[in-house]
């Protein structure tokens, strides 16, 4: 679906440090990739390059034909403040898709907020609306930049479940930036680590064993253990 070859990106002049260097990455439909790494390791930059919002200074980004439909949940919700909750969804799926939009609002537990403006929603509600917007276009590739932060634990669990169910049913490619090892252990079919200071990917682990959605607590614990062992420097201590 998408292939990155020797992708590098730096900000500033020739002397600037490479934020990303030599990234090789193949993304397949149906993969659930978790992207981990400390702040400043280029996770967001990599996501922006995959989304096509940023151009690499080196290497190239190739997409399959026809190009995949891409949806992205940004770190901040990026809702349109003068459009109601419902209109924020209709903006991306078209003005006649009201019933679909309502169903999505129900999915993320925002029933009854159709006519509220984003400024009237709590931070967690805004994040869920951003998630609903991403799912609304039925993406082939779903990019999630820490989509579940600032949700309370129970809600985070339920939204993780919504994400997982969507993934199991539609099999899009998913790339999710997360700091939470439990989340990656529960959801990921592959975990990619980025480290600052070094160049490129430093962890690219194909997770063996039961696929996400059928993992037991024991399986998840073993994934977390492997993650921590492989990456003592990553801020993923549970």
């Amino acid at each position: 679906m998408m292939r990155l070859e020797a992708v590098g990106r730096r900000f500033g002049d020739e002397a600037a440090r490479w934020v990303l260097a030599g990234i090789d990455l193949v993304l397949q439909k149906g993969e659930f990739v978790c992207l981990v790494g400390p702040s400043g390791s280029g996770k967001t930059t990599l996501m922006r390059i995959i989304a096509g919002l940023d151009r690499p200074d080196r290497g190239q980004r190739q997409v399959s034909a026809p190009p995949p439909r891409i949806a992205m949940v940004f770190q901040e919700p990026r809702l349109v403040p003068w459009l109601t909750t419902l209109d924020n969804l209709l903006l991306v799926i078209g003005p006649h898709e009201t019933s679909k939009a309502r169903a999505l609002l129900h999915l993320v537990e925002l029933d009854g907020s159709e006519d509220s403006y984003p400024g009237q929603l709590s931070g967690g509600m805004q994040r869920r609306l951003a998630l609903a917007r991403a799912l609304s276009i039925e993406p082939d590739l779903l990019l999630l930049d820490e989509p579940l932060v600032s949700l309370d634990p129970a809600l985070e669990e339920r939204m993780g479940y919504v994400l997982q169910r969507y993934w199991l049913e539609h099999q899009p490619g998913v790339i999710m930036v997360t700091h939470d090892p439990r989340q990656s252990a529960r959801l990921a079919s592959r975990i990619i680590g980025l480290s600052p200071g070094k160049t490129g990917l430093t962890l690219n682990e194909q997770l063996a064993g039961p696929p996400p959605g059928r993992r037991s607590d024991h399986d998840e614990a073993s994934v977390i253990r492997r993650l921590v062992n492989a990456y003592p420097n990553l801020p993923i201590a549970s």
Partner: protein
Amino acid sequence: MTALTLHISRTGRLSSWLLRIASLIGLLVAWQVAAQLADDPGLLPTPAATAAVVIEQIHSGDLLFHVGMTLLRVVIAFVGAMLIGTAIGIVMGRNAGIDMFFDSWLVVALNVPALVTIVLCYVWFGLTEAAAVFAVALNKAPTVITILREGAKSLDESLLEMAEVYKVPRSRILRRIVLPQLAPSLMAAGRSGLALTWKIVLVVELLGRPNGVGFEIRRFFNFFDIAGILAYTLVFVAVILVIEALLLKPLDRRVTKWRQSQA
């Protein structure tokens, strides 16, 4: 909204209306006093004498015709200047290269006196209706461009990026994301523009049209008829105030509705 805030906003609106009316009465009183001090109806007629001229002109049908003609020119030139100015302003605001290239042109355009544009248009295109309206629009457009350019420069990039990722159609981006952000600029350009436009239309009419308020004012000037000049001016100012109150203010409230709902 609670009962208390409703009460406060109602009394607030009431007292602001009272203040406006008091201010208008104050203006009339000052005029009356000045007219009595001048003691020469030929030089400065009283408000009552001016009102009599207004009524007489309305009865004869002249006033409605000339005010109508002027208003028509104002509307056409205003809408034209707003449309063209907005389009150019957005392009300049969103494209640094084009902005840099045309910036000095804009400075020139802003500083050419209205009279020069009008005279040149009449000379080049003849004493026609099209030349008149075009000259007015040409005077107004640079201010619209300047205001809209600044508005377009400060568009929220993060929302445009979001729309880009989600492949939102361009026309929808313009209507739903860009224009709402430009609403304050559009309102500013519109409100300042209406006043400017009608003043320039009067000059255009004075110089080269066979009708309209400007034409009438020149006729009154030839006969040294101050009451007539004041009568037409008052009526036209009133028309513009009505447009402002009934059209522009409600529009302003509508486009800022989402902001109020957050308060």
